[in-house]
Structure formats: C-alpha cells, structure tokens
C-alpha cells in the first residue's frame, strides 16, 4: 500500500493533496459514527502542498512521502494538543515531537489527526476514553478493541493509510485483530518511548497499525533505533536477508487459558486458527506443539507490575505544571481534587491498586513475586525459541464484543489480554495478522492470529506474515 502510493506520487498519477483530500473525505463520511479521531488537524494540506512542490521539482520521494497517518492521542506531536483521552490533560499542547513522530515526519509522513483511545491506554475496548467510545467499523454495535481502538478503526475504515499505536499488554494487537488490521508490537527497547505518555514503562512500546505486513515493516524500519532521549532504547542490528523460518511452535497452554470458565477460546476462532495452521503447513512450514508453562500466571503478574508502574508514572498529573487544575484550600486539596475530576474510573482503580501492591510491607508478597514470575515467563520463551523459529497463537480468545458488555466487570475486561500480555512481560516482538472472519449475529467479524518471534527478530514476523497474508 505505501510502496504503491509513493510510486504513484513519483509518477505524478496522484498528488499528496489528492491523497489528503481522499482521507479527509472518508473521515467526514465515516467518523461521525465511528469516533476514531479525537481531532482532525487543519494543517495536513499545508504539508501536502510542500510535498507536491518538492515532487514537481523532481526530488526523490522519501520512504513515507505524502503518506497520511493517524497518531494515537498519547504520542506527542509538537504544537498539537495531546491528551491520552483524559480530562486531566484537557488543553495540554505538546512542546516537542515524540521521537517516533519526528522520524515519521523526517521521512515525509503527513499527520491527519490524533485518535481516540482508552484513557492513558488503560483498557481493551476504547470505552474508557473520556470522549466517548470508538466503534468497530465491521459492526458499530461492537468495540474496536483497545487501547489503540481509534488507530485500528481509522486504518480499517480507510480513514488513514497507517497509524501509530502503543502496546503495553496487547493495545496494538488486540484492536488490530478486532478491526481486521495488521498490528506490530516491536521488541521492547527497539522503538524510542520518548514522547509517549507513559503508562507502564517496562512494558510500553510504540508500533504501527497498517493494512499490510509490508507497510508495518516499512514503518518499523523508520521508527526504530537508539535515542538519547530514551535510556532504555537500543540500537539493534536486525538480521538482514532471508532468515527463512522453518518451524513454528503452538503453545498448548493457550488452549487451556480459560479463567473461571470466562475466557475459553471461542469455537469459531479456534476453527479459523486451525485453518491458519493448515495453510502454513501447506506452505512447507513445520508446526510443533510447544509449552510455556508459566503463562498461566502471566495475567496475574501483569496486574501487579503494570499498576505499580502506573501509580508511579501518573503521579506527575497533579494539576501543577500542565493540564486541568481544580482549586482547593491547600496544595494537597488541589492534588486530590484535580486527580478526582481529571482521572476516569479505571485509571483511579489502577493507581489505587498500584499504590496497594507497592505499600510498605507488601513488596515481597506482590511486586517482587511478580518480577520473579516475569523472569520465569521470559525463560519459557527463551527455552522454546531454542526449538522453534516462531510461535503462533490466536491474538484474542474471541472476536469483538458488544459495547457495554464488559464495562461493569473490570476483571473480565482484564482477561481480554490473556493471549497478548505474556509477550509484553517477556519483551519479545509479536504481530497480529488478519485471518478472515467469523459470523456472529449476521455480521462478519475479523479474526487475527499472532506470530511471536525471539528478541530483535522482527524480520521473521514480516516474512511469515506475508506468507499468511497471501491467502
């Protein structure tokens, strides 16, 4: 999609202005119903005109020249409002570009707008946005997934060529699967987190949501790399050329991850997953059953590590330096009232939970134990990657659910991420790729499958992803 578009630009079959017009028209037509965008920028045409001038002048187009992007509302764009879909950041304007945004900009990308999300990326349905839920383009009575639901819906409904999202426990892959898009969570530390509004810093990664695997690859190659502004970022020499994968492991635990009878694998999704396995077998890949025994504990460990980091990261939102401020009789009162009015229910819940697991006397029982379990999960992946080149799992246990269906029960919403969370804990890269759809109540709902690769082996994901996509 990106390559073809740039070819057309270069041959002047289409102008950047026409591209922007097309996507803004789509937004005007579809977004009143879908609510994928929080804001559509008014300067996309200005950038487009500059690009058209350069092309007219005979300049060689850059890697993303003229490509219209949607950016999740927790990734900063200098001079634009940015709010992580939270009331507490109402009126906040970013004073710098996130490194990933700067890299896109330097390659000629055009930013159409910022997309809706679960507040501070906490949620799996985009219902936790302070600005109303986003709807799934395949069936607007259903959620698009989350937390990058706006970005996934924008790409799936052709309201952008590609989007950036962020993934802490599945927030790129799950909405990509629900909406029928490709979603990549890169290896932890390959993409700079500078300018990403932090949720849980040891898990957060920025990644692309796209229409094709090739597009995800192109964008990943643009945004990756060491950055002085993120001390955890690494310069990675990614393996070049064909790394032809031969064996794919299917972890047996993924089929027994039912929690209290709540989240067993949906039968139709299981059928699609078996189809994907058969397809890959026919393409000459060997499929092996493997075991990740500790993943049974992944979600429980995640719900200690993540809220602990959340409670620390979100202490900066206190109404003092930016965003909304509520008045109070003293400084404590200003903090407490600002954070009461500014944060939504789920954000408050996770901050309090994080405060609890970190309180004195509880470190060993919770945080330390969770970090040890996290080590065991990482080891499980390490062990199996000695036997297989990649892992394959369903991305989600079921297709998109109805808006409101899980809103009143936080635990059932948390279980949404049961297939994606272990990957963030281990830090490995994974990609969700659309694989057909299942019919529910007369609607065809997209299904995704997830490939997982060893650390820094994104190229394997792209390679096998393209094979699966060819179906």
């Amino acid at each position: 999609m990106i390559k073809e578009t740039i070819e057309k630009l270069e041959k002047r079959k289409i102008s950047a202005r026409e591209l922007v017009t097309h996507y803004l028209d789509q937004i005007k037509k579809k977004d009143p119903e879908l609510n994928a965008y929080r804001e559509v920028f008014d300067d996309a045409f200005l950038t487009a005109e500059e690009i058209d001038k350069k092309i007219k002048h005979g300049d060689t187009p850059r890697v993303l020249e003229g490509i219209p992007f949607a950016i999740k509302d927790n990734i900063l764009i200098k001079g634009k409002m940015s709010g992580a879909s939270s009331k507490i950041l109402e009126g906040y304007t970013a004073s710098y570009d996130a490194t990933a945004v700067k890299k896109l900009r330097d390659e000629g990308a055009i930013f159409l707008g910022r997309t809706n999300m679960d507040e501070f990326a906490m949620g799996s349905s985009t219902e936790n946005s302070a600005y109303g839920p986003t709807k799934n383009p395949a069936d607007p009575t259903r959620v698009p997934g989350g937390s990058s639901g706006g970005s996934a819906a924008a790409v799936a409904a052709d309201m952008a060529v590609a989007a950036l999202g962020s993934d802490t426990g599945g927030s790129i892959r799950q909405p990509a699967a629900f909406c029928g898009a490709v979603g990549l969570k890169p290896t932890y530390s390959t993409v700079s987190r500078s300018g990403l509004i932090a949720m849980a810093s040891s898990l957060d990664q920025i990644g692309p949501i796209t229409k094709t695997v090739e597009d995800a690859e192109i964008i990943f190659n643009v945004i990756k790399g060491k950055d002085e502004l993120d001390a955890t970022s690494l310069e990675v020499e990614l393996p070049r050329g064909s790394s032809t994968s031969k064996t794919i492991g299917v972890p047996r635990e993924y089929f027994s991850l039912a929690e209290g009878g709540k989240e067993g694998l949906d039968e139709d999704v299981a059928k699609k997953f078996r189809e994907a396995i058969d397809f890959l077998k026919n393409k000459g890949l060997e499929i092996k059953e493997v075991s990740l025994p500790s993943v049974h504990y992944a979600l429980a460990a995640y719900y200690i590590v993540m809220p602990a980091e959340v409670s620390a990261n979100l202490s900066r939102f206190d109404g003092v330096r930016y965003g909304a401020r509520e008045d109070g009789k003293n400084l404590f009162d200003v903090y407490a009232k600002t954070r009461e009015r500014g944060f939504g229910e789920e954000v408050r819940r996770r901050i309090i939970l994080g405060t609890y697991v970190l309180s004195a006397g509880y470190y060993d029982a919770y945080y330390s134990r969770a970090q040890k379990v996290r080590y065991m999960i990482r080891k499980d992946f390490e062990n199996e990657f000695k036997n297989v080149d990649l892992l394959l799992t369903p991305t989600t246990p079921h297709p998109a659910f109805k808006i409101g269906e899980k809103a009143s029960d936080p635990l059932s919403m948390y279980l949404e991420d049961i297939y994606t969370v272990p990957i963030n804990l281990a830090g490995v890269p994974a990609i969700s790729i659309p694989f057909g759809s299942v019919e529910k109540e007369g609607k065809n709902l997209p299904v995704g499958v997830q490939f997982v690769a060893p650390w820094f082996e994104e190229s394997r994901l792209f390679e096998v992803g393209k094979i699966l996509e060819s179906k």
Partner: protein
Amino acid sequence: MKIWKNIFIRSRLVQEIMLSKDDIKKLAELARIHLTASEEEKLEKDLSNILGYIEKLKDVDISNVPEMTHATEEKNVFRADEDVSRDDILLREQFPESERGYLKVKGVFERE
C-alpha cells in the same frame, strides 16, 4: 504527619483478600485522589476481586528465581551533566497558573 501514620495496612494471610473501607481511604490519600463514599464502596469490591485473582501467584514456586528487572540486555547509560532543555516557551504556556513567568502553586505550609 497524618498521611504517613497509617501507611501500614494490616497484613492478611488468608486466600480471600478483603479490603476494608479504611484501607481504601488510606490508599486514596497516599495516591492523592479524593473519592466519594460510593466510589470507596465500589473500589473496595473491585480491588478485592482483582487481588483475589492475583492470589494465584502464591502457587508458583519462586525459590532461587531472580527478579526480572529489564526486558532486554541493558546497561546503565551515562551522559555529561549538561543542560539539554528544549524549547521552554511552549512548556511555560502550559502552566495552569503563573506569575511573572514563574509557575504558581498553593503554599505547602499553612499559616496558623
């Protein structure tokens, strides 16, 4: 200091984790979030559920397992202690309240 006096929340060894309303009040104070009575009640229930789920970690044998502190091989990074601040005009524009270019906040100490 009233805030720190109650930081220790009594420990429980039972599987069923039940938080009391007082626990929630203390946590909210530590987290600097004001809660209404009905929110306290709801949180009490929600957190007890979540903590009940997390209890399954107690089944894992973690003897001789180290804590994982980094997802990838990381080394400490140092840089020279130089001012690298960026454009601060936009930063200052974000101040909810300012006086003569300075950020203005409520006093920490109150007059008798």
